[in-house]
Each structure stands twice: as structure tokens, then as C-alpha cells.
């Protein structure tokens, strides 16, 4: 059973998703995978990753690092496609693929610069990857973010990103068996 979980920031989506995935893996007696999607950029990110790692400690997750190119996991012979996957988050993969960070040689003291390259083809690719992953596994919990209820006064590229993530969410909602919105730890079933 594929499940899409969304909702606002710091509402308990990840924790809810972790429990759901773990219980599912136990019930099915299948391996439990955590798909890590964050590319750490600074100390704040690294601290977040450490916190997430310690929160998952002892839950039985095997971590798969896949910040881009999700469907590569379907080709990986070391990954049991019958297992239960937790993908946290769709939001991060979309960001990683739409706004790629490319290192360029800097002019000052040999330091490298990070340039952000906007890949316009990413939005459709990521959307298709998500649906293909749901179909190729059958037991994935997808975590996304509800970023659509505000004024939306963003730069053009950020607005493109919101649009792309919403399209991926909608395609996933269609492909998944369940759609759940989490508000402060409480689950509302949409499908």
C-alpha cells in the first residue's frame, strides 16, 4: 500500500510516517528502508540530519542515500523492492533536482564557488519518478509538504517550484492508496 503524507512544517509528518512504515514492515515481515534525501549545505542541515538519525535509531531502518534520481533504487539489486520504504521527502528531491548546486572554481584564494543551476526539465521527471517508484515498490510512504496556503509572493523560480511540487503531489495522490494530511500530529484522511 502506497501512502502520501503532507501537511505544514513541524506538524509531526515524519514521525507519523516513520511509525506507519515501521508497523507496515513488521506486519509484512519485510525489510524497512529509509530514503534519505537531504544534501547537507551547512551546519544547520548537518544538525538536522544528526537529529533525524538519532530519532530513527533503533527503529530498524536501513538508510538509502538517494537525494536525486529516485528510480535508480528500483534497479539496485541490493534493495528488496518488496520491502517497505519511507521517502522523506518529495520536497527535498524536487529541490535537489530543480536547483542543482554546481561547484565552480572561484577567483579568490582558490576557493570554490557554488552556483545554482535551474533545471527546467526536472519537474516532469521528478513527478514521473515518484509515480514510477510507487508502482515499482507498492509499499512506500511518501512525505511531502503543504506549502500552498499562503500569499505566494515568491520569486519566479520559487513559484515554479511550488507549482512543480503541487503537480507531483497530485500525481502521487492519484497513484497512492491513501492520502493523509497531518496537522499537529493528528491525521486527516483524504483518501
Amino acid at each position: 500500500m502506497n501512502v502520501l503524507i503532507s501537511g505544514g512544517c513541524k506538524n509531526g509528518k515524519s514521525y507519523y510516517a516513520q511509525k506507519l512504515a515501521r508497523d507496515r514492515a513488521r506486519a509484512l515481515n519485510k525489510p524497512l528502508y529509509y530514503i534519505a534525501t537531504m544534501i547537507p549545505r551547512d551546519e544547520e542541515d548537518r544538525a538536522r540530519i544528526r537529529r533525524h538519525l538519532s530519532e530513527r535509531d533503533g527503529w530498524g531502518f536501513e538508510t538509502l542515500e538517494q537525494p536525486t534520481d529516485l528510480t535508480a533504487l528500483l534497479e539496485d539489486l541490493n534493495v528488496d523492492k518488496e520491502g517497505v520504504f519511507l521517502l522523506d521527502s518529495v520536497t527535498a528531491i524536487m529541490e535537489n533536482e530543480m536547483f542543482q548546486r554546481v561547484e565552480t572554481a572561484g577567483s579568490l584564494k582558490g576557493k570554490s564557488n557554488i552556483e545554482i543551476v535551474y533545471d527546467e526539465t526536472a519537474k516532469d521527471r521528478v513527478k514521473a519518478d515518484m509515480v514510477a517508484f510507487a508502482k515499482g515498490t507498492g509499499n512506500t510512504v511518501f512525505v511531502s509538504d503543504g506549502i500552498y496556503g499562503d500569499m505566494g509572493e515568491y520569486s519566479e523560480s520559487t513559484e515554479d517550484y511550488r507549482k512543480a511540487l503541487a503537480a507531483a503531489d497530485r500525481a502521487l495522490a492519484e497513484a497512492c492508496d491513501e492520502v493523509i494530511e497531518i496537522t499537529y500530529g493528528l491525521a486527516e484522511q483524504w483518501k
Partner: protein
Amino acid sequence: MHLIFGGAYQGKLDCAKANHTYETICDCSDGREPDFDADIICGIEGFVMQCAKTGTEARKYFEEREELWKNKVFVITDTSQGVVPIDKDVRAFREMNGRLMLYLADKAETVTRVFCGIGKRLK
């Protein structure tokens, strides 16, 4: 009137089309005044933005024309979440949009919220 609301890009208009018979749609997202001859009136927040710029109270505008839209389907974007906007005009718009949605939800025969392309009836 049937009110359909939700965040940006959630599939509100698709939800309206799928659940109501219609022939014509008036899209007000560019700021135009609603054409109440149309069956579905969407992007109402665009018209509200225009109202905020000209100092017209959107709720009052709809109140005065209630007879014209009793049988319509209204689609509006919820902009009530997130940080209070810094810009004074945008702030005025957001509040005006909220006041209008409160009024419309009260008057509506049905109210539906759309999330990830899925509609859920709240009223």
C-alpha cells in the same frame, strides 16, 4: 452557491468541473470583475486583489449581488496561511479575502476544500 477552496495549485477548478455541470467559466485571476452569467467563477481572489487596490470591500460587492450568484459555483484560493505579509496592500488583500471567504462559506449550500487534487466536503 457551491464554494470550492484550497491552496494554490491543488486542483480546485478540476474539482469544480468534475462535480458540477457547467458550460461557461469566468476566470477572475487577472483581476476582472466576475461575470455572473458564467456557471463557474474561479480565481475570485484575483478580483479581491483588485478590490483591495481600489479600496472596494469585496464582501460588500458580493452581498449587493447575491441574487445574481445564488446558483453558481465559486472557486477561490485560500491565502490565509503563512506569515503576515509585510506589504500593506497585500495585507489588506489577505484580510479582505478572508472576510469574503467567511461570508461566502456561510451563504454556500456546500463548501468543499481541495487538497492534492482531492475534494472534501466541509459543509
